[in-house]
């Protein structure tokens, strides 16, 4: 949520701008919930995957002049592959140690983005990422984001209520039992991670072309805790809950912009409120508003 809405004059323009951001955050949190809530893998590297998607599309479209649609697709596919690789340790490593491994992955992605200066421009970031001509205006872009988010939501909502989704939840609730019942546990984890990777890679690309500037800091712990908060508020293992959670998060944090605080204080204030909320939920209501599972059943 580090992307400030500079230069937006009217309320309408601001809301349209906000709409696209909310859509992208929903995409990020839905794919997060598929892996964390339904499959029980706390993938703290999720925003690292998002960063990969964002950089892939930004570089392909800006430097190699590929069409936007191809950039988006390439971001999704490449991130999907990386997510598949990130799923491999889940074969041996479980629970909180898997969370640590994926946190380590996030650090590595960050370091590569900072140090791969010849490609990523390091901490300077990539400015002026072009938008496709059709979606130049914010309102057209909102339409695009809304379409993709709605399609993804419908797909994921059906997926988790299908036999495949129930198998995922069996893996989360008791891996040994799922194994004994003949479920291919690792394959299920792998597929869940890859689907999630494809979606979050696209979300990253959508974000890159929307805010038109990305830097390694855009995909760092601040974003991770936003994803965690969105999911935990709405509910672990609930797609509808996730949408509600992200909207609540924005509804709570955005009004801070209109308070007469010095602007340097607003960032820390947002983070503190969000984190206190996250702590409150973990302590008081670990399944969130509409959740059906706890992270560690």
């Amino acid at each position, binding site marked *: 949520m580090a992307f400030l809405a500079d230069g937006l004059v009217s309320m309408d323009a601001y809301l349209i701008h906000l709409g696209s951001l909310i859509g992208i955050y929903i995409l990020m949190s839905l794919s997060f919930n598929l892996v964390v809530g339904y499959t029980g893998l*706390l993938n*703290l590297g999720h925003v690292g995957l998002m960063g990969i998607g964002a950089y892939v599309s930004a570089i392909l479209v800006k430097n190699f002049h590929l069409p936007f649609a191809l950039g988006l697709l390439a971001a999704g596919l490449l991130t999907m592959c990386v997510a598949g690789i990130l799923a491999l*340790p889940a074969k041996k*490593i479980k*629970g*909180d*140690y898997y*969370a*640590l*491994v994926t946190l*380590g*992955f996030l*650090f*590595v992605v*960050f*370091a*590569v983005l*900072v*140090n791969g*200066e010849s490609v990523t421009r*390091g901490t300077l970031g990539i400015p002026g990422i072009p938008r496709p001509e059709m979606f130049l205006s914010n309102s057209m872009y909102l339409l695009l984001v809304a379409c993709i988010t709605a399609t993804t939501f419908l797909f994921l909502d059906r997926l988790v209520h299908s036999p495949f989704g129930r198998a995922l939840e069996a893996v989360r609730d008791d891996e040994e039992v799922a194994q004994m019942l003949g479920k291919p546990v690792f394959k299920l984890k792998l597929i869940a991670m890859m689907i999630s990777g494809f979606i979050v890679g696209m979300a990253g690309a959508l974000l890159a072309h929307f805010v038109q500037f990305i830097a390694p800091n855009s995909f760092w*712990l*601040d974003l*991770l*805790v936003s994803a*965690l908060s969105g999911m*935990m508020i709405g509910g672990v293992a609930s797609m509808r809950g996730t949408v509600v959670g992200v909207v609540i998060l924005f509804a709570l944090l955005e009004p801070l912009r209109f308070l007469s605080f010095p602007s*340097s*204080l607003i*960032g*820390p*204030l947002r*983070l*503190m409120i969000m*984190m*206190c909320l*996250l*702590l409150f939920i*973990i*302590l008081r209501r*670990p399944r969130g508003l509409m959740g059906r599972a706890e*992270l*560690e059943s």
Partner: protein
Amino acid sequence: MDVFVELVFHGLIAACIYALLASGLVFIYSTTRVFHLAHGGVIALSAYAFWFTTSVLSWNIVLSALMAIVTSTVLGLVMNELVYEPLRRRNSKGLGYLIATIALLMISGALIIAIFGGQNQSLGFSSQVHVIVGAHVTTLQLLLMATTVVIFFLLHLLSTHTRFGKTMRATADNEVVASVLGIDTRQIRRLTFALGSALAGVAAIFYALEFNLDPNMGVMMAIKGFTAAVIGGPGSMTGAIVGSLLLSGVEQASVWYLGSSWRNAMAFTLLFIFLLMKPHGLFGRRFS
């Protein structure tokens, strides 16, 4: 050759800072099974408290050092009482603690910006320079190395030769049995957090005297301490020392061969390789 010796000393100094960081993390983890990443935030806040009292309020340096240790101890205790203990009462396992500690780490960073502002700060502290086998070392750096050695020695004595150490290990091994045997496990955890966080205060003082402070330093400290602890095996003090030396060695080697900007990247890569290949570290036991 001279450059090489300088680099080795730089490596040792960094290793001492990492070892101080990791010792607190490992100390807390080995008793409470909480991977207290917010330890980095505690260090950052105490380092700022140290800077604020010396530079802005111009307190005596000893008084400021005490202030830093008090700050870190209080912060550690507050985090334990307000967050970790309630989580424990809910029978939370690793994941809940992990999310909570990340949240606390982020709060610390935000607090620093809110209280002390977003700029980098420096104490501008300098001490006498000595030349030892061709390398330039300051009195402060010698003091840092000595302090690290003493602290590890004391921690070792504490855990192996005192009653408190025994009850600590009993609490770590099996909380239920320990409490049946009449050990007040909650009190043990409280003391562990107090002592581990006091170590954070010591690390903060040396860090503030030696390096610049920036509001995001807590995250970096958490990652470095985390890396050293994971490489060594998060429950082992020997591991913390070896992990810190290895981490610092890899960092200096990447500065030497690849250039200074690759320092963090290689450190993270080392961490990732260890997490994948040897997740319980060099000296770690497998905990179920």
